[in-house]
């Protein structure tokens, strides 16, 4: 076995290189296990990819379906799973171009405008297995603009007119405390959390009463557009719930580092939560939130729809599993669950016939911390991360 593995790798690499050259042709990938995320894992399993879409998935695909597809053996112990989906990120946004700090609300701003497709950031996300991301404007404004759903490989926008993002947290107040220069943004509102809520409530009620015209805000209020609310501390999350009740909308809570404290409220209202990163190993998260390493497990037990967002999603799912979340739920939290929250589950999130060929190939159990990503496929196109991880593994 030990002698065989490097040979297998070499074969793998060789075949992969040839595949890259002809990405529209049908290719049959044969793996140790296929996590379809739409049912039990298939072991061993085969996935047929053609024209950037999944043509078939089964333990053995019949020759009739297979046609003259090239066969790629991924080897013993290999795993295929759907590409990861990040429901909230600022990756790929130009560093100094994502926050329009001079205005309190900028509901018309589109994150799609600031995406730097050639940034290292974008490449790193792709290499870490994330194939679809919801890129959101920053949190320096109370209402910061419109999020975009994009694919990380290739310059492809899935939806550039997606959710409206608002913040109920301390971020919009961060720069506004000084009163020294009356001509600068430093006297811009809001200057504290009460101000944040006031501005949001004021804007929403003006829109509701027809005193202010803002299509994105109106759509968010009447449920035609998803409404992301970035809140991390428990009392901010409760405030978001209060506002939601007041104006009768259904928010998607983003961050939610202390959502485990108010699971009753969240599950009663049936809000979805996009969890921010928690693998810090520190006691406190952003805004001094008290972290609970099993927060994902607690949300799951409470029956709340949630997903895990942030950099290195696979690591985060592993982390969540280690501290209590069920293995299948941990994988779902970075694939099917975000797809469902973003409303793109018809297209991505599982390995099913007709869906986008967004796959990751791994050499082992995805939730094992030492398992490396072999390659990442977006719409049938393969990208190989730098081979550093494999070298570190000693193969």
């Amino acid at each position, binding site marked *: 076995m030990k002698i065989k593995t490097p040979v297998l790798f070499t074969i793998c690499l060789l075949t992969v290189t040839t595949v890259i050259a002809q990405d529209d042709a049908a290719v049959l990938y044969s793996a140790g296990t296929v996590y379809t995320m739409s049912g039990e894992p298939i072991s061993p399993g085969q996935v047929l990819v053609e024209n950037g879409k999944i043509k078939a998935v089964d333990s053995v695909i019949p020759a009739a379906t297979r046609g003259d597809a090239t066969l790629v053996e991924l080897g013993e112990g290999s795993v295929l799973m759907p590409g990861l989906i990040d429901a909230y990120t600022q990756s790929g946004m130009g560093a*100094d171009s994502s926050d329009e*700090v*001079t205005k309190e609300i900028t509901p018309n701003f589109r994150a799609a*405008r*600031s995406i730097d*497709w050639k940034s290292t950031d974008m490449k790193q996300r792709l290499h870490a297995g994330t194939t679809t991301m919801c890129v959101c404007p920053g949190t320096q404004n109370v209402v910061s603009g419109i999020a975009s759903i994009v694919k990380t490989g290739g310059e492809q926008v899935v939806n550039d007119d997606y959710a409206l993002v608002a913040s109920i947290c301390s971020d919009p107040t961060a720069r506004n405390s000084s009163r020294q220069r009356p001509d600068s943004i430093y006297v811009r509102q809001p200057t504290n959390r009460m101000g944040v809520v006031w501005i949001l409530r004021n804007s929403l009620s003006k829109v509701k009463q027809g005193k202010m015209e803002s299509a994105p805000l109106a759509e968010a209020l009447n449920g035609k557009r998803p409404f992301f609310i970035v809140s991390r501390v428990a009392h901010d999350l409760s405030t978001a719930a209060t506002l939601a009740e007041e104006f009768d909308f259904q928010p998607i809570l983003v961050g939610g580092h202390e959502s485990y404290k108010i699971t009753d409220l969240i599950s009663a209202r049936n809000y979805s939560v996009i969890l921010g990163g928690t693998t810090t190993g520190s006691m406190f998260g952003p805004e001094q939130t008290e972290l609970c390493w099993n927060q994902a497990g607690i949300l799951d037990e409470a029956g709340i729809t949630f997903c895990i967002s942030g950099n290195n999603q696979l690591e985060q799912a592993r982390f969540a599993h280690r501290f209590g979340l069920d293995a299948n739920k941990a994988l779902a939290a970075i694939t099917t669950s975000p797809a469902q929250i973003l409303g793109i589950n018809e297209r991505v999130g599982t390995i099913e016939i007709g869906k986008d060929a967004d796959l990751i190939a791994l050499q082992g159990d995805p939730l094992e911390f030492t398992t490396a990503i072999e390659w990442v496929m977006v719409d049938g196109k393969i990208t190989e991360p730098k081979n550093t991880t494999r070298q570190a593994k000693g193969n």
Partner: protein
Amino acid sequence: MTPCQKISALLAATLLIIALPASTQAQSPKTQPIVLQNATIHSMAAAGTHEGSILIQDGKIQAIGTLAEIPQDAQVFDLQGFTVVPGLIDSRSTLWLSANAVKEKNDKGELNVVDAIDLWNEDWREVAAQGVTTVYVQPGNPSSLGGYGAVLCVGPQATVDAAILKGTAAAQAAIGITGKTSQARFAQIEKLKAGIKKVKDALEKEKKEAEEAKKKAAEEAKKKAADEAKAKAEKADAGDKKKGEAASKTQRVRTRGEGRPESGRGKRGRKPTPPPAKKPETPNDVKQETDEEADKQTKKETEKAESKKPDPTRELWEKILARDIPLHVEVHHSDAIQRVLALAAEFDIRIVLDGVSQAQASSAHIIESNRPAVVGPLWQIGTAPAYRADADFGWITELPKSGNLWSIATFSNLPRGSRLLRFQAAKAVAMGVPKEDALQAITINAARMLGVADQTGSIETGKNADIAVFAGDPLDPSTATRMVICGGRIIFEAPAELNSSPALSQPELPKTLPTEYAIRTNRFLNEGQFKPATIVVRDGKITQITDNSEADLQGITIFDVKDAPVTPGLVVAHSHLKQNSELTNEAESDASHLRAVDCADPSSDAAKKMLAGGFTDVAFAPLSSNTSAGIIGHVKLGHRDFVQRPDVANKFVLSKSGRNTSRFPASLTGQYQLLDGLFAGQMEKTPLYVSSAVGESLERSKRANVEKVKSGERTALFVADTALEIQSALSLINANALQAAILTSGENVHQYSDELAASGAGIILQPLNGREYDAALGRLVQTCSGKLRIGFAGESPEQIRMTAAMLVAAGMPRDQVLRGLTGDAASILKMDTAGQLSTDDRLANLIIWNGSPLNPASQPVHMVVGGKSVQQK
């Protein structure tokens, strides 16, 4: 010899034996021989310029000329047609010094620049790529008396020691860097003088004392000898005993009498000579004398302790007074120059004048004094510091005739600044210094100045193999570097092709021209190509342009300028002509309706210099502080109606300079939003307090202006530097089908060259200046050559021509760059009457050069501007 001495001597010998091979190895590594074949060699030595080959081995030049035999293992380079010169020497550099080290201030001469060398810095690569192999670094000029400088070799160095060609090469001083008045400079020189005088006096006093002590010792020895002799005599002559005693007594009394004034001085003086042996007369006297003795003892002890403490200032001055090292005095103003010269004469020390940027009034004194001078920077890159704001180097043309030792240096504050040394030399040539002298000033003469002429500076057998090879004229910075060797190691090599501007040729034109004449040239610039042509000028107006088949030129005086190029007036594709303060107002981020030409001042210094540099057509633009910055106009310099067209383009800023946290927009998203709205007809409300009527009228005006951009009547000029900004600009250009241009630093254009070419947008390059661009420049040239139209932005002709020359040196086709200076720039910005010779009376612009405009060493010698002849000096 004691056994102990024997052992130590043996040890020392062993150590020497061990150390010797090691040190020789470090200095001249056994390397593969290098042979440079069939090159044109500017030896800078007695051999002059000749064709031949060079054999390099063990870090030295082993043979020059026709090589009898080429070593079998040699690395052979056939350099047919290439020019070989000694490695260039920047006699004032900051290579390998950190910004902090350059700024470090010391007034006591306590620094040694060697301590600040950071070999991890990779800037040497860019310096080497321009043919520079040796640099002199010293403490920065904020120090009035900084310390020691060192001569360094360029190249990858393992240790600081290996990098040093000569340590403690000179001492550094600076006058007039801080303090703007002549009084301040006077005070600084007085301080310097006081320092040197103190050390000189102390040295003289010590010398005197030493002499006195010696004299006294001799006297005492003499006396002792005499006493001994006397004693012998007494012994021998026992009979005369009494008489002898009496005699000796009188003598003793007399001695004491002589000693008295001496001991009196001892009481006042600092270092009394001990009085001669005495016989106490009264008890009182005895006590006094013992007290005095005790006092002297303590004084002596403290003095001893003081002299043991190191005094770097004194050590430095001692070295200078002993003429071991020269003092490099950076001095710019005439008054200070004269005082420094006087100071050097007074103390008889070696000085080198550095900088010397405003020596008009004292140039004769410098030449007369025969003191060496390092002049520069002749080519001011970026804004000049206050102390040389009024630089005028006109006097340096006197230097070559005078026989004074002088060199040219970059005086850059950036470690990579030395790479522009060739531009400095080219400027000297443009100012009228003969080429041979300019080349000497950056090779052999610089080596002599720094005291390393025995090792480098010329191509002679036995010298260090410091050699630069150029694909043509070394003093033309648009010539690519083929290879550079330092200490026998190849530190730069590129597959450069032979490519150089044609030689400079001084056209012969009379001082006054007749009313009607024709100029015949072999090199008339048209569409980026030089072709023969004859241009007829009547009453300062161009009436006819023909090829050289003299059809109907009878009766017209023809001046044949032969190879001197004739061009239309050159075009600047973006400039503020240094009117920055008039052209900016950050308050209103949408200033689509404001016209730059409304505040154009054609009589400003910047405009005059631009015109004198051969640039007649300027796209005069508002500053980049607003997202919609305003309207760019076409200005024709030197013409009575200088505003040729007030609105050739609108300027839109996506770069950082348009962001402002005091008002909207503060982000690229905001900038995009604003411009997207603008093109869609949704205006951002003005933040100014105006009545609604005025607000509406403003909005109408802005909308009308943007409509003209959308219809293609005006160019849309986008300022974009980062990849994301260029991407945003492209998105706006494509969405609105704009006729566009991108004003950029050029660092990220290579990522989008295909998309830009597809959209038809032109590229306007910001001046390259001191930024780190060499790698970016290479990428730009690779991706954009022959594909995109380019133009040049800049505030002075030097900036623009430097950028153009760097592009050519990096490999961009000459015709593309020449078009960028003329027709392409004009077409990008819709400046219809620019960049071409026109027979339209009012617009006649014609420049006769003494060399290609791409060679910074050339300059316009005769111009016809706006129908008037202008003779350059």
